[in-house]
């Protein structure tokens, strides 16, 4: 069962740079490994990640098989207003997951 871990500060001062940590559980199968019988295990990775802050995209990433399993991505943003962060992961085999976190900016 896919699940996300998000770390966003609950409160921040206006204008403060905050760090956002995200982790999505996913095997990130590279497509280069083989089974004991020599068959290639098909690729199954998350290909894209995006974060929106009150509806506006503030961060996006293209991921490749060289990203380790359970992609962990950390980035920063300026706390401008109270509201919601929405996170979205999209990948092979129709993988699509979302998560959200809220923040109070004073």
């Amino acid at each position: 069962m896919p699940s996300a871990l998000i770390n966003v500060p609950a409160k921040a001062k206006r204008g403060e740079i905050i760090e956002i940590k995200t982790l999505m559980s996913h095997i990130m199968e590279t497509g280069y490994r083989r089974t004991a019988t020599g068959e290639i295990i098909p690729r199954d990775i998350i290909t894209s990640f995006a974060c929106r802050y009150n509806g506006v995209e503030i961060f996006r990433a293209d991921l490749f098989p060289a990203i380790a399993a359970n992609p962990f991505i950390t980035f920063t943003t300026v706390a401008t207003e109270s509201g919601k962060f929405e996170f979205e992961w999209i990948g092979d085999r129709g993988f699509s997951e979302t998560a959200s976190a809220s923040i109070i900016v004073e």
Partner: protein
Amino acid sequence: MDKPTDATRRQFLAITGSAALLAVTLRPAEATPAMLTSAIRNVVGSAVVQTGKVKLDIPPLVENGNTVPMTVSVTSPMTPEDYVKSIHVFNEKNPQPNIGNFYLGPRAGRAQVSTRIRLADSQKIVAIARLSDGSFWSVSADVIVTLAACTEEVD
């Protein structure tokens, strides 16, 4: 499909033992420095890539190539007039030259991204930043890997 002749099969079996180890180093899919160069060209086009401004934090010696922590940061005021548009990370010897592309903007406040990557071999990692003025800046780091990623078999 043609069956291999007995002679071929015997020869095959005879070398299987030693070949098992060799097969790991003879993986057909391996990015070459040429692939690294062309992957970088795909991002920067014909622009000149300058050295500097970018910092790549990655351990110089890693035991397990399956998960290597990495942080890329770029010296930038991150104002609407002068900011980092994107950060691109490449490798030399994984099956594919790309590791990740990260798109940010002035709202990031700080041009810094961290993630965990896979390294199939000891190799060079290159990080390139695209600035809002269209210039490209890069840094590279060498990493020695003792246990490589993506070589193990799976049942």
